[in-house]
Each structure stands twice: as structure tokens, then as C-alpha cells.
């Protein structure tokens, strides 16, 4: 298994994120949120992240920024290392502000 590397973006087939609009999760600050539009890499640790709900189409809400950071996905709070969060890309979820969407965990 190759070690995790700094994510190179935009990635692979499927939905190519708009580089101007997508941002990796470790760049957000507390209170910000977005829809997960891309997760690059197929490392086993990325797979672990996916089974815990950090997966395409889910809404991710940053509770605490930093490394490691705390996010909320599907009503669960997860602690995630910064080097993993760098592989998760979000796009703004237009319309509804974060705090109204946030369901907590």
C-alpha cells in the first residue's frame, strides 16, 4: 500500500470538481460546511473514511479546525487527521446556511 501523499487535484473520472469552487476539508474553518464532491485516492485509510460516512454527496460540517480536526457527517462527529482531510473536497452547498442544516452528532 503506498503511503498517503499530498493530494493532487482535480482527480480521476466521474465528476470533475470545478477547481475554482471546490476546496479541501482541511482548509475550512469551524462553522463552515459543504457537500462532499470528490475524495481522491483509494488508500485503505480513505476507504475507512468512506465507511464512516465521509462519502460523495454527504454534507460535511466543520466543528473544529486544525490537525486533527472535528467534522460532523450524517449526524456523527468524527475526529480526522489533517492529512486525510486533505483528500476530501467540498463544494459550497448553495442556498441554505450551514447552521440550519447542521444536525450535530
Amino acid at each position: 500500500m503506498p503511503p498517503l501523499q499530498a493530494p493532487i487535484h482535480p482527480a480521476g473520472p466521474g465528476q470533475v470538481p470545478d477547481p475554482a469552487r471546490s476546496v479541501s476539508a482541511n482548509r475550512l474553518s469551524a462553522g463552515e460546511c459543504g457537500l462532499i464532491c470528490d475524495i481522491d485516492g483509494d488508500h485503505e485509510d480513505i476507504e475507512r473514511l468512506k465507511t464512516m460516512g465521509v462519502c460523495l454527496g454527504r454534507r460535511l460540517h466543520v466543528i473544529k479546525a486544525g490537525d486533527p480536526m472535528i467534522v460532523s457527517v450524517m449526524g456523527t462527529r468524527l475526529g480526522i487527521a489533517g492529512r486525510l482531510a486533505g483528500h476530501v473536497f467540498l463544494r459550497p452547498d448553495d442556498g441554505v446556511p450551514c447552521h440550519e442544516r447542521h444536525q450535530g452528532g
Partner: protein
Amino acid sequence: MSGTRADESGRHVSPVSLPVLPARAAVPVTVALAGNPNAGKTTLFNQLTGMRGKTANFAGTTTSVRLGSFPLNGKSIQLLDLPGLYGMSEHKTEERTARDALLGKLSGRPRPQAAIVVVDATNLARNLYLAGQVRELGVPMVIALNMIDLAEADGLEIDTDSLAVELGAPVVAVNSRSGQGFDLLKRELAYVLDSGPEAMPALPEGIAACGTCTTCPHEARYDWAEEVGARAVRTATGARLMSLRLTEAIDRWLTHPFHGVAGFVLIMAAVFISIFTVAQVPMAWIEAGFGFAGDVFGAILPPGDLNSFVVNGLIGGIGGVLVFLPQICFLFFLITLLEDSGYLARAAFVADRPMSRVGLPGRAFVPMLSAHACAIPAIMSTRVIENWRDRLVSILVIPLLTCTARLPVYVMITALLFADRPVVGGLVFTGAYLLGMAAAIGMAFVFKSTILPGASSPLVIELPRYRLPSMRNALLTAYDRGRAFVTRAGTVILGISVVLWVLATYPKLEESAWSTVVPAETIAQVAGLRTAAASVASEAEAEALEAEVGALLSPYELEYSVAGRVGKAVAPVFSPLGFDWKINVGVISSFAAREVIVATLAIVYGIGEDAAEDEETLSATLAAQRHADGSPVFTTATAMALLVFFVLAMQCLPTNVVTRRETGSWKWPALQFGYMTVLAWMAAFVTYRVVSLLA
């Protein structure tokens, strides 16, 4: 709350009257328990089975399960508590094992006839992801909608009827702490077991669609789970936010880069200190109890081999195991309280960054803290570390940390060298602790950059909501761990101490062989005592004299035994460290448990075992020892080398045996033993040289 079942057509029917299970008595019925971590599986397991659970490994794997049984309609049902799962991913060993267990693909375990899927009602969407996957496997199942009390307090209203239809399986709301809903849960389970897989409703379309989606199966499943969850739950506004706000407020402190670390240090220090203060009380009782038992049997049994075997081999051996029990139980009691409260996940979160510097994950911290009580339960508790390489490195370095069994050795040596300088003694004592920690960290780094390369796997951890921990769970876990220690380690320790007793007793030193080891003056002394014994009037006096003879001869008996001969044979190996053959015998005897060296040195140096408990006599005797040329045996250099050797050496075969169990191969305990012995020898050699130069 009512239990609801969906029949084939998707209609809901209320639970029917109890069906009578057909008498298939010969085949034991197995029911598996699956669920996300923290969904309350263990609590539900304990509620169903009472105290009858026991931990076991799946044959051929290192994944542990809990086994228990409970009666259902007059039959005994085997309950299998699988490890906590988030999904059925092929990538994680535990999840693959759990999947195989559910499908009956694991050797030695029958396919379970049904599964109970434990779902956290306060976090429905996330938990339905797994429930949907288990449903896809086609195992007949009942959903236990757990923590219903918390969901209600949060103002959540869950429509179990619609859930049952969407999942194609009965759903029962339960509270595993109080047992609410369990009657219904059992009835539903009985019904599902009775009607078998043929009677299961067809796989609901929503779930079936997830399985066939090829692009991102996670995505499809999560979409499904989120939709189903949203449809089934009605939230009363306001209420839910309360308990969440509390968690967020606590987390602002406990995960903070500064306060969080301070809190972490405080909590861990409190755990650490209390296992040494609180647990010390029952430990002293156990020691006193076994000491008393030894005295009683020593007095009742006629002097001779049987007496020595019972007192030293058996009672000493059992006492040596049980004395650690209070500490282990208390440690796990505290850790379970922390785990149940939700703090342990935060501890791993806070410890992750500093630990990752040496290549270990934050989850390795608590096992390493536990290792300061005893390496055996610490190694068993490395199961929380998900990544195999990370776990292996932790297992390899854990025995370097100072366990309780080393303390008597530290006490002996500091008393010997620094009896009149308590401050220096204290510093050396602390230094020994720090040396163990530094060596563990250093070796973890070495392993991570050589044979087990790679950074620690990056942190992904669920931070569950803070909850009031359950005493009952904590007590049950403490009991469970204590029992696992006694059965796994205890038998090994007892076995080894019996073997060592044999080695230290045979061959017997017959009178004809005295001339080989006993000096002439001692022989003369013995002869004098014997003549005196023959002439005294009372039997008691004669016995006292005979005991004196025994005490005079016992060092030579040990010298003549296999242990003594081995001690002499290995002298070339240890003489560079300044050890004489008597110290070697002590080192060899400490393989069952390190603290045994204290008693052994007391015997080889001829002051009798009882004197070992009296620090002053022992250190005075040790200090008075002279080599043949008249130079002292226990110079500062030798004693310091012995201390360093004991800090670092793998003087504990039971730990090796547990490493074998946990890693499934003899390769790793062999490596553990080998590297620690080499490290200990080299460090002791350097210490001996350096201190000799300075002194």
C-alpha cells in the same frame, strides 16, 4: 413503543402470539449481535445474558468475540457479540471477519440462524447503513432500536412501523440499560428463528438497489440510509439541541490544543496514580493471605520436597498471579468508565499528534498506560488499534514499560545502593521508569523505520456523545478482564513457577556430594549442630537445630541444582555486566515473574527466603557479599547494571505467551524476546563500564 414486523407483502402485522419452537434440541441455536461501535451491543449483550459472557477469539484470527447464552422458550440460545462495525468493507479485517461470521464461513462456527442488529436510535441514518448491509446478506434478523430513552429525551419520535417495512425486518425499540422492550425483542427473535430464512420478506427494493450500484456503493447506501432515516424520524424542535450543546461545550475544552492536553494529562495521571494507591490495598491483603497460607502449609506438611513444592511452587506461584489481579480489574474498571462516558475517543484524538511523531496512533496510548500495571492486559487491549502494523509495534514495545513486577527489584537495588541517600534513590527509581518509556518510544521508532515501515495510520475516530457511564458495564468488564488474565496468564505463570521450582530443587544435594560444593568449614559446622541435636533433650530443640542445618545448606542445594549449574554455565555471558553466578540464578528464576529474583537472591546468599521481605537485612547481606578475591559483589556498577538489565529485559515468559496468542505466530514473541534481551544486555554493559569508570 411497539414492535412491528413486515410480512412478505409489506403489510405490518402486530406481533403474533408466541410460537412454540419445534424441538430441534441437538442443534444449538446461534444468534449474532451486530452494530456500530457505541450502539450499545455490549450493554444489550449483558442485559440478555447476565454475567454469563466470556471473551474468545475466532479460530485462526485475532478478532475477538464475546460468547454467551440466554434462555428463549425453554431453549438455550448462543449469543455471539461481533466486534463493532461501521460497514461490511472488505478492507478491514474485523469487518471481513464479522461478515464471514454472519455467513457461517468461519471455520469452527456454525452459521448463525439469526442476527440482532443493534441500532442507535439517536443516530439513525448512520446506523441504518450497516443495518441495510446486514439485511443484504440475507440472514434473518431483528432490529433492536436501542437507546430509545435517549432518543425520546432528545425529542425524537421514530416510526418503527415504517422502518420495519423499509428494512424488511421487525424493529423493536429497546433500552438496553433498563431492559425496557426486551420481552418483545425476545418474542420477535423467537418468531424469526422459528420461521427461518424462507419466511423472510423479499429484500426491499431500496436496499437491493444499493448492492447493484457499481460506481460508489457507499454513496448509494448512504443515500438510502439518510432517506429512510429522515422518513422515520420526526424531531420535536429544540429538545435535541440540548444534549448536543453539552457535548460541544465539553469538547471545546477537552479537544482544545492546550486545555485538552492538560485535561488529558490530568485524567491519565489520575488513572495511573489510583491504580497504584487504591489497588495497593487489596494487593497487600492478597500478599498477606498467601504469605499466611504459605506459613500454615509450611508448618503442617512434614519438611521435605512436598513441603517446598506446596509452599514455594504452588502457593508462591498462585500468589504471584493473583497479586496483580486487583490492579488489572481496577484499571479496566476505570478505563471502561472512561470509554462509556465517551472520553476515551477524545483521549485518542488528543494523543494522536504527539504519538504520531514516533509512528504510533493515538489509540496506542491507553494500552501503553495500562502496561505500567502489567504488560499482559495491555497487550490484550491493543485490539483497539485498527491498523495491524501499528498494533504489532505497540505489542512489541509494551513490555519495555515498567510493570508492577519490576518494582520490588527497583526497591531492592535502590535500597542497596542509596539507603542513606533517599533523594538519590528516588531519582534513580524515577530514572528507571523514564528509561523504560524512552526505550519503548525509541524502539517504536526503530521498528517503524525498519521492519514495519510506514507512518501510523491517520486518525479517523467517531467522537460519540458524552454519556453518564454505566457502573454495571464497568464492573462486568473488570470481571471479564480479570478472568481472562487469570485463565490465560495465570495457568502459564503457575506452570512456569512449577518448572522453575523443579529446576531449583533437583538434583538433590545428597550428603555424599557435599564435598563438591559445600566448603569444609560449613560441613564442620553442620556436623557440630548434628551432634548437638543428638544430645538435646526436647524434640523441639532438636528440630530447631535441624532447621538451622537446613538454612546453612540451602545456598549449596541451590548451587547444586540445575538452576545453579545453569547460572554458572552462563557466567561468561553475564560477567561483562559484573554479575556473578548467584545473580545469574536470580535472573533465571525471574522468568516466571520478575519479582522472584528478590526471593532467589535471598536464598542464594543464604539469608533465607523470609528475610527477603525485610529490606534492611537483605540489603545489608547483599552489601556484605564478597568475591573470592575479597572485592565486593554488589558494587555500584554491578547493581546499576542489574537495574538497567531489569528495566529492559524481557524477563517474563507469560507475556511472550500472550504475544503469541495475540499475533497468532511465534515469530513475534521470539523477536520481542530477542531484541529486548540484546538491548538489555548492551545497555547494562554500557552502564557497568561507565559507572565503573566514574566510581
